[in-house]
């Protein structure tokens, strides 16, 4: 058993997907030519003033509501002062002691709650571009709205950290406030990690690892940091309180600055902006705009009797989950729908990106899938036919009614089936003799023959029963 337990808190930066920046009308679009999405305000020209984007406040409040936070009636903006070429005003407008949201949590599969200390809004900085020994600054990202979600140090393992972050990412995507693409930097996080002897209640000295931009880097950095700190403690050395960076190449974390070099941000109220007052009515309206969240959706799908693994893969993609819900309308057993989606539809959209938007919906609308499932449930078609029909639907975009003939849909009643079975027995004396001679296996070709004769519409179990009875009588 491990000697030390890790104690971890995450600070997650989520870029909001508002159309315009937090303090001006510039677009937030990603990937434009450097310094083309800029204006006097977001490059901080002398004399300009920020003007807070209402949508940013609303998105942040939604993020707070979706993570069970309290929403501040009176929130304030503050200046965080530091000098860096990518920060054109030499201060970042952020929130210090009066954040917009506070006191929430995210629930893990185990039922454990990871508490959220606060969520605040702030502006992103630009970025430095290094090219052939020269350094350039691109301010396109400057002024893009961010929320910073700060957790309490409630996380105890790499797995919990990953699950917390995945849940957070999923919630933000569900409520439509961010696309949370780690590779584009719209989700990044800082890890605060310390160790303590298992069983201890004390907090150890923590190191902060900056700017994790993928799940795997976060995991590697945490693993490395755990081992580094454990070794220090084993040797009786102290862990320094410091800020560290993760080097992807070496897989190591390295010190950026120690406690004594910690920046003094000289926070003070942003005098250019007024307090943010949020009325209970606004909160109520925003609450009503929230969609069903992953937690409650998961619970509902489990109640349908769907296997946990399938539930997870449906809930993971909001578009798929919505597709599923729509296809389920009026269906007796949602599990049938989920089986078809996970079993067949997913093969048509192998990538995450395709599932994110549920690309199959372009060919086959949820209503068409529903139609197919209803035919199945009413016994008009059998599963085999349903599956092949679904494939054709996905190929052609046609509906079940367009693809299935009247004959396909005609039911095979017991009288007709009995007649077909008689015919099959008459046509296959060899197999019948084998069966009667005790070869159980010889029944299979006979069932197959019945299925062929009925174009798969017969119920295999009924056919088997009838064949046995008829052969027993004939004996």
């Amino acid at each position, binding site marked *: 058993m491990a000697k030390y337990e890790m104690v971890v808190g995450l600070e997650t930066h989520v870029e909001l997907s508002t159309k315009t920046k937090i303090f001006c009308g510039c677009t937030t679009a990603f990937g434009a030519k450097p310094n083309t999405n800029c204006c*006097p305000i977001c490059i901080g020209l*002398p004399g300009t003033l920020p003007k807070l984007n209402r949508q940013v406040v609303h998105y942040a409040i939604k993020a707070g509501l979706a993570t069970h936070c309290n929403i501040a009636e009176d929130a304030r903006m503050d200046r965080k002062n530091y000098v860096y070429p990518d920060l054109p005003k030499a201060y970042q407008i952020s929130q210090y002691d009066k954040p917009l949201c506070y006191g929430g949590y995210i629930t893990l599969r185990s039922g454990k709650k990871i508490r959220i200390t606060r969520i605040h809004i702030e502006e992103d900085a630009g970025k430095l571009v290094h090219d052939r020994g020269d350094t350039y600054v691109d301010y396109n990202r400057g002024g893009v709205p961010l929320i910073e979600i700060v957790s309490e140090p409630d996380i105890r393992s790499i797995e919990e950290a990953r699950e917390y972050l995945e849940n957070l990412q999923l919630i933000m995507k569900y409520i439509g406030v961010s696309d949370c693409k780690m590779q584009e930097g719209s989700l990044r996080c800082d890890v605060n990690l310390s160790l303590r002897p298992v069983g201890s209640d004390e907090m150890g000295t923590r190191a902060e690892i900056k700017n994790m931009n993928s799940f795997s880097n976060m995991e590697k950095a945490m693993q490395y940091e755990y081992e580094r700190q454990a070794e220090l403690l084993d040797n009786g050395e102290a862990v320094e309180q410091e800020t560290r960076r993760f080097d992807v190449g070496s897989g190591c974390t390295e010190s950026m600055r120690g406690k004594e070099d910690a920046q*003094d941000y*000289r926070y003070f109220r942003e005098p250019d902006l007024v307090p943010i007052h949020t009325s209970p009515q606004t909160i109520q309206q925003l609450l009503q705009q929230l969609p069903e969240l992953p937690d409650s959706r998961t619970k509902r799908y489990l109640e349908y009797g769907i296997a946990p693994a399938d539930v997870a893969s449906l809930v993971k993609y909001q578009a798929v989950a919505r597709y599923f819900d729509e296809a389920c309308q009026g269906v007796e057993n949602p599990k049938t729908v989920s089986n078809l989606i996970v079993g067949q539809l997913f093969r048509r959209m192998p990538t995450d990106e395709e599932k994110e938007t549920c690309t199959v919906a372009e060919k086959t609308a949820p209503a068409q899938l529903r139609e197919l499932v209803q035919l199945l449930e009413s016994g008009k078609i059998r599963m085999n036919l349903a599956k092949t029909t679904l494939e054709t639907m996905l190929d052609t975009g046609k509906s079940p009614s367009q693809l299935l003939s009247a004959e396909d849909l005609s039911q095979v009643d017991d009288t007709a089936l009995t007649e077909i079975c008689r015919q099959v027995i008459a046509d296959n004396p060899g197999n019948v003799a084998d069966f009667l001679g005790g070869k159980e296996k010889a029944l299979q070709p006979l069932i197959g023959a019945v299925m062929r004769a009925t174009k798969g519409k017969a119920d295999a179990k009924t056919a088997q029963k009838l064949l046995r009875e008829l052969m027993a009588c004939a004996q």
Partner: protein
Amino acid sequence: MAETKPTGVIRKLQKMMTDGSISCRELTQRYLSAIEKENPGLNAYIRVTPDIAMETAARVDEKLAKGIPLAPLEGIPMTLKDNISTDGIETTCCSKILAGYTPIYDAFVWKVLKAQNAVLLGKTNMDEFAMGSSSENSCYGGSNNPYNPQYVAGGSSGGVASAVSAHLAAYGLGSDTGGSIRQPASFCGIVGLKPTYGAVSRFGLIAYASSLDQIGPITTTVEDAALVYDAICGADPMDSTCCGGEKVTPSLGGSLEGMRIGVAREYFDGIRQQDVTDALNNAIAAYEKLGARIVPLELPVLQYALPVYYILACAEAASNLGRYDGIRYGYRTSHYRTVDEMICKTRSEGFGPEVKRRILLGNYVLSSGYYDAYYKKAQNLRQNILRALEDTFTQCDVMLAPTVPMTAFPKGFTSQSQVETYLTDICTVPVNIAGLPGISIPCGADKKGLPIGMQLIANRFCEKTLLSAAYGFEQATWQQHIAPAPMGVML
């Protein structure tokens, strides 16, 4: 001596243009010629814009020719303090660090005035980044007082005050963070109005201390101040702290009968010259004669105003001036190896000593470990001062106080005595701390013939009351008004 009862220069000039006695181009040309002649002795203008002025004047003349009625400030030659952003015209705050910086947008106030064909003669001198009381902290050197060029015009809007006082502009816009409109108006014998915080948009005003800065008119008469204020006040969606104010011109000229004038002893305690005390006592007597009632007040909290002002203003300034790093615009040092070195040298070379002093002070009072002792305490005291001043307006309609405890400083005084100079802001800073409107109007002269200013203060957004009180006094006492030696455009 002023020869006629003062009516506004603005209305007079407009009337002359509309009745055809002078064209706008002719008027503008006269101002430009006067600037050419007088400015070398005053150093009021640091950048003259004759082409822009003449183009605008030509447009106004076209309108006049067609008989199209003019907007209130249309065709009137004017000036802007060099911290008000003007699209296409270099704007430097009289700092080396902004050398060569040409804004790509207009300040709200200039946009509004430009839209009504205000004739911009040029940009005027100021203390670097509006930090100072004599305009001598300008990288272009100080502005001189038209009453006596051996004395300063005051500051920080010294250039505007000097220009308007010497009739080198009909009016000008300055900015007031701790007295920068009222103090130079007082020194130069003219009118300076610092509006309520939030009455005039700050958009485009290069910030010194954002929670204190306010743009306002500097004029020769109260009526002109009212006309200019009416043109520039109003809500601006680009300035979240600006909700606009009421127009005041229509309400000028009412009786002062029964108006309650508050006089707080604390404002008078620091007066350094007997003739200033005398002039203010005469002013109080004049108000009584006009039917106003004098209400004695006590405002002990004012003793904290000066330290509160310097702590808050410096803190905000340190943050506001962080952006001047040589990367995007303005001055950049010529030799450097790293970005850090570039920023450091650019700022060391670009800022003057007073600006550096305030940046250091500001960063100090905000730094961890000192924040509670200075910045936080100052914020709390700010609330106390605000409440105390607001309370006084339950007892009076306007307060009367000196603008400055003395008349204009001799040149070179401020650089010799920095702390002494800070102390002279004692009467002007409370208004900024509390966001109130204040106006300085002339009320006499000292033994040396230098003007004495009187300050009136009203409650937030009570510019109507404030200007009515000022107008009543001006109309009643115009005969006591002294003028500088005739210069500039006298029409």
